[in-house]
């Protein structure tokens, strides 16, 4: 009796499992979307950012008479998550990509041209429109943009009686003078990830280097400048293992008098009331040259779901979230610079201490403007090259190899 019961019981379990697996695979495709509920996939996993986004979405939802939900995953997972959702036909209505990743998704045919959804690029500077575009099509609306700047410890500089450096020579001399005991003159990230590349770009670009010819003399010079800082002892050798967050920790702990970093660190910096920091443009190779940094930030995109009606509503949501008013609120919260010119003007008046950053943003360049989806290969090759060079190899040889690697597509 019990044996028979067991047999049928186990068969039933197996059957149930089979049904479960089968139904999971079937319903995985073609997920039903709730009318009136729209989802945004973003990387706002930090509590503060998540809250700011939720507030903005609540305001826009109220205005449009819908509910907007956000789904936040770590920044590095947005792309793979979105791709998986694409293959199971369960894409969210809006995806917030890092701008350097957007071209990859656009190239795969996954995004809708925002101008067809009624979004305008009025009041947005040309550089920032290009930042959200791929091959001339406007796919991503930026709410705010950021770039890198030179942060310095006001007290340390004042005690040493030194002005804020504006050229490479001054930076090198100042950093050397400020290096004392456990404190280095400068901290920056040369880590083996996008962080390090992001930090190398202002040096490479301000010197006239170009990502299409990594072994060009201008790029070599820029890398040699980094090498000199290490040789002088004013930059820690650990720089090759630091992320930008590590750099910020070093600066806050007093282990560095100056650092290269971005406005997203300001919130953390301000938690230490005794730390008096200032911000300036990144020094340039020669006096009078323009400081060109990389434009960073995320863009709101509408993925191609095939549901035109929902896509149109998604366009209106993007328009609301990136409206002048919402941009200003977001930018004032997050210390980033609004993409919209009018909002940026107000922001500049309200945040005079970040004046330098606004100037940097105006001159900044997008990483993918020249290479589009090919950026990731170049970025990987470049990381490996500056890490080799900073740990002993000659800049010339390291960059030559990087160029070969980048062009072979490896």
């Amino acid at each position: 009796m019990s044996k028979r019961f067991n047999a049928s019981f186990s068969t039933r379990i197996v059957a149930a499992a089979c049904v479960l697996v089968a139904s999971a695979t079937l319903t995985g495709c073609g997920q039903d979307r709730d009318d009136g509920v729209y989802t945004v996939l973003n990387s706002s996993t930090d509590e503060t950012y998540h809250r700011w986004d939720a507030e903005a979405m609540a305001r826009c939802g109220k205005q449009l008479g819908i509910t907007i939900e956000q789904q936040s995953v770590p920044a590095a997972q947005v792309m793979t998550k979105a791709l998986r959702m694409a293959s199971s036909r369960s894409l969210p209505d809006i995806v917030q990509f890092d701008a350097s990743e957007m071209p990859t998704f656009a190239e795969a045919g996954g995004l809708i041209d925002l101008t067809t959804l009624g979004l305008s690029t009025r009041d947005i500077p040309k550089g920032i429109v290009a930042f959200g575009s791929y091959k001339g099509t406007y796919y991503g609306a930026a709410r705010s943009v950021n770039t890198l700047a030179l942060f310095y410890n006001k007290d340390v500089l004042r005690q040493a009686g030194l002005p804020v450096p504006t050229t490479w020579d001054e930076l090198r001399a100042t950093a050397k003078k400020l290096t004392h005991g456990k404190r280095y003159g400068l901290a920056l990230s040369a880590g083996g990830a996008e962080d390090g590349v992001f930090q190398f770009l202002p040096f490479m670009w301000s010197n006239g280097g170009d990502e299409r010819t990594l072994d060009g003399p201008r790029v070599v010079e820029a890398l040699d400048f980094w090498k000199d800082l290490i040789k002088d002892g004013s930059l820690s050798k650990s720089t090759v293992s630091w992320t930008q967050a590590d750099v910020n920790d070093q600066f806050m702990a007093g282990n560095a008098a100056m650092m290269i970093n971005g406005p997203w660190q300001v919130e953390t910096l301000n938690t230490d009331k005794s730390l008096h920091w200032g911000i300036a443009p990144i020094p340039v190779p020669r006096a009078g040259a323009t400081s060109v940094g990389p434009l960073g930030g995320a863009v709101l995109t509408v993925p191609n779901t095939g549901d035109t009606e929902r896509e149109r509503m998604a366009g209106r949501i993007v328009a609301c979230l990136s409206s002048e008013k919402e941009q200003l609120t977001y930018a004032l919260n997050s210390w980033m610079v609004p993409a919209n010119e009018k909002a940026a003007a107000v922001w500049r008046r309200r945040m005079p201490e970040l004046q330098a950053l606004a100037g940097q943003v105006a001159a900044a360049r997008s990483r993918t403007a020249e290479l589009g989806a090919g950026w990731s290969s170049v970025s990987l090759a470049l990381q490996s090259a500056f890490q080799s060079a900073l740990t002993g190899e000659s800049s010339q040889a390291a960059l030559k190899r990087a160029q070969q690697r980048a062009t072979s597509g490896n």
Partner: protein
Amino acid sequence: MTTSSITAPAAVVTPRDTVPDPARQRRRRTLARWGFVAPAVVFMLLFFGYPLVRNVVMSFQHYTPKTFFTGRAPFNGTDNWSHVFRDALFGKALWHTLVFTAGSLLGQFCIGLALAVFFNRRFPLGGVLRSLILLPWLVPMVVSGVVWRRILDQDTGVLNSFLDTLGLPGHTPWLTDPGMALLSVILVNIWIGIPFNMVILYGGLQEIPRELYEAASLDGASAWRSFRSITLPMLRPVITVVLVLGFMSTVKILDLILALTDGGPADATQTLGTLTYQNSFVQLDFGAGAVVGNVLILISAVFAVLYLRANRTEGK
């Protein structure tokens, strides 16, 4: 036995059931047997067979982000394979993987065995100490990675400060020098792997009858001699298990390296695991990622076969 003798007379009473078609009965029995195997087979096919085959197929496909939309991944022959093998990074990563695996296993095993032998003798607080040594095993790999990255920092790390106070080289570039980084990563992995080795080997040691050692000491064998002639041979099956399992979990290392060095500096700690990750999830070239993944599977498979072989001869 007894049940069959009881059912037999009953069978005579009801002729209908008594003439059971022997072939049918046999078929039913085989069916029942397969029924018991089926869940395992289905599970294996679904969760091991399918991904494995998929991975092999994918390595011959041009599989890009576009594939996720169109569902089309055209076959491109051996393009992915030749592309990966021509990449200088692959050779490097393969070499690093071998060094990492051999170094980690050697360190983990030797220290684990030494500790197991040490704890095999009874002494006060032995149990407490033994359980304390298990701690690294309980800490998630990524957490250990992040903590060790701090400890090994060249300027502000605890290890260098400690070495400095002892008058030893306190500016060792543990993770920042391409020549040192792989060694540092191996050392951290040894630290992580010791508890596993110790626990299993300790269990094996407990199984060895004490009389053998008593007999050996009566024969005048030295400690080293009884270790070599009793402990090691008696422990052999356990040693094989420890090494094979250790190998499998070490060769595919990814999380620890991502947390410690991210494959850097200058690709000095790039292994097959990190290379697969980089190909698939940074470059989004899934075909190339699958190739490296297949190489990893192949290496593991070779060792699995060797292990099964060793087990079979052991059984005989």
